[in-house]
């Protein structure tokens, strides 16, 4: 079975600062995808970034980047130049490439960006 752990229930930073959210996971499989989702107060789940486990290069999307350490089973999200609109719950998720397409989510990190 797969598990995803987010050890930071809440984080708070000032606008324009950089913040890193942590995620660790466990799976015995070698091929999988990792995702970060954002859920603002509107509750709409928004895909932020995706990483394929077979790629060594860390994924980036504008101000969002990941630090993927496969051996350590770590997948952190870095948000640069944080903005007020980044305030949301952030969930880390894992999906195996083979077999069921289900997403396994972490517990989430509530991120607040202060003006």
């Amino acid at each position, binding site marked *: 079975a797969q598990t995803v752990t987010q050890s930071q229930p809440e984080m708070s930073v000032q606008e324009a600062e950089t913040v890193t959210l942590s995620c660790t996971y466990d799976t015995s499989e070698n091929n999988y995808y990792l995702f970060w989702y954002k859920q603002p107060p509107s509750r709409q789940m928004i895909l932020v970034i995706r990483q394929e486990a077979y790629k060594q290069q860390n994924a980036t999307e504008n101000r969002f980047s990941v630090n993927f350490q496969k051996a350590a089973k770590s997948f952190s999200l870095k948000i640069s130049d944080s903005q007020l609109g980044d305030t949301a719950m952030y969930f880390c998720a894992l999906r195996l490439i083979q077999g069921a397409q289900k997403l396994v989510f972490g*517990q989430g990190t509530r991120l607040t960006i202060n003006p």
Partner: protein
Amino acid sequence: SAVISQKPSRDICQRGTSLTIQCQVDSQVTMMFWYRQQPGQSLTLIATANQGSEATYESGFVIDKFPISRPNLTFSTLTVSNMSPEDSSIYLCSLEVYNEQFFGPGTRLTVL
């Protein structure tokens, strides 16, 4: 990506009753998913719904409690049956496109 709509967006129901949640997507997809998000919690998969076959339920979820229909490639329903206050949650449908899952806006259910 895909456009996914859910109805109702929220509802308040009495215990013992049932509520059917609808999920409509703007493109044809083989597989749709239903998740539950209990208050302050993460998302948990209820079941996977393939068009033309019975839904596959995750451990802890049963068809009698959460019957799912999938009549065509753009539509699915989830019924929460014989509700109790413990069923108060956000229910979300999702679909997968090119190995990425996209979610509907969710249905916030409160059971009194």
